């Protein structure tokens, strides 16, 4: 009976330790993303100023739309995640907002760099970063944002995505497939990461239980010795 109670306590302790470590990891990651988004915002503004500062009509120029876009859209994409990281670190809402914002950052940076193929790697890099949350729902959200962007572009202006005006209706799936391909790997990594955390928590709980048991034994032994010393006939 006592063994069953100990096992149950150990399982409970395992759960507590597991969630403590998972939450701590997610809060750490929230803070990393907050800093990353500030860096992305500064980078986007710098990029717009260096690459496309002006829009021209003959010899006259006005500030290029990219500069406004980098400042305003960048602010919109960054401020809510920053606020949520400060007010609700580790919450589901915070990381869902971060996931959507991060994928929209990809879209903005791709646009600001003139659709450079290299900038598209931002999507894949971001997915890898998001995977550290060890939350498959985040990856689904991020993938849906990317797929929706391609689907809508493909529907309304296919040339902007595929370079042709009448692609097959399923063409967006080909692009989404490569994102899903990475998702597959990351989902396995998430699963393994969670299992490692759980194993670690279990080991920690077992160690704590053993330590507690040993301490109890030491206390009992000490009490026994004290009791024996107190009986002069046994000394």
């Amino acid at each position, binding site marked *: 009976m006592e063994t069953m109670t100990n096992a149950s306590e150990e399982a409970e302790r395992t759960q507590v330790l597991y969630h403590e470590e998972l939450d701590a990891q997610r809060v750490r990651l929230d803070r990393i993303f907050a800093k990353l988004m500030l860096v992305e915002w500064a980078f986007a503004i710098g990029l717009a100023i260096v690459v496309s500062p002006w829009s021209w009509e003959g010899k006259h120029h006005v500030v290029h739309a990219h500069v406004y*876009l980098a400042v305003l859209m960048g602010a919109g994409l960054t401020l809510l995640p920053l606020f949520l990281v400060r007010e609700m670190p580790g919450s589901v809402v915070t990381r869902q907002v971060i996931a959507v914002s991060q994928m929209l950052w990809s879209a903005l940076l791709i646009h600001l760099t*003139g659709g450079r193929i290299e900038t598209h790697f931002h999507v894949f890099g971001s997915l890898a970063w998001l995977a550290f949350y060890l939350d498959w729902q985040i990856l689904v959200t991020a993938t849906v944002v990317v797929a929706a962007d391609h689907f809508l572009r493909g529907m309304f202006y296919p040339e902007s995505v595929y370079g042709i005006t009448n692609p097959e209706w399923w063409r967006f799936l080909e692009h989404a497939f490569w994102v899903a391909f990475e998702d597959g790997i990351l989902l396995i990594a998430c699963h393994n990461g969670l299992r490692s955390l759980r194993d670690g928590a279990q080991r920690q709980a077992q160690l704590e239980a053993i330590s507690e048991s040993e301490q109890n034994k030491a206390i009992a032994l000490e009490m026994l010795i004290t009791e024996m010393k107190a009986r002069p006939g046994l000394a």
Partner: protein
Amino acid sequence: MTRARRALVYGAGLLWIAAAVGGTAFIFVYESQPAAAAQVARVWPDAVGLARNQSGFSLVMAVHPKCSCTRASVAELNKLMLAWGGQVHAIALVTKPFEVTDLWSETDVTARLREIPGVAVVRDLGGAKAAAFGAHNSGQTLLYDSAGQLVFEGGITAFRGHEGPSIGGETLKQIVAGQPAPQRHTKVFGCSLEDKFCPLHGTSHEGHDHGNHDERV
């Protein structure tokens, strides 16, 4: 959470939605908004004083040297010229308003154009030559056959300032390869070559010489 903090969350939330939806929509509209369609020269305008290729195709691209979107057109032109390997003679008309020094048109776009094999870079004073071809926006590309007849006009990027496959580029390849090309006109996205304060090709004063200036640079 206090009322002030809740208001901040809602404010940031609204800004976020505006950025996510509005920003994305703006990018889409901005990227796909072409310049007004131009009435281009159907026949090679001999009056501009530029020699065309008598035995093959001649390509003309109007370029605003400071237009950031044009970098993509220049990159696509480079790919085409490399693929054609000397089959097509190309002329890049780099516009330069009268009031500014030559240095004004010496940008990374112009430098990149000079590096492309088979492209003659011509400084176009006041945009007069581009206007003779009917080109009003940077990136406008025209292809003429050996008889001087227009066979293609438009842009060679899929949308504003973005490199990559485009209908314009594919059409040019088909025409030069002698294949049937269903489309002979595409959208142009570059900056205006003309000064909004003076439609007479980049000058705010009348009386400039808008004649022939075949100034290869």
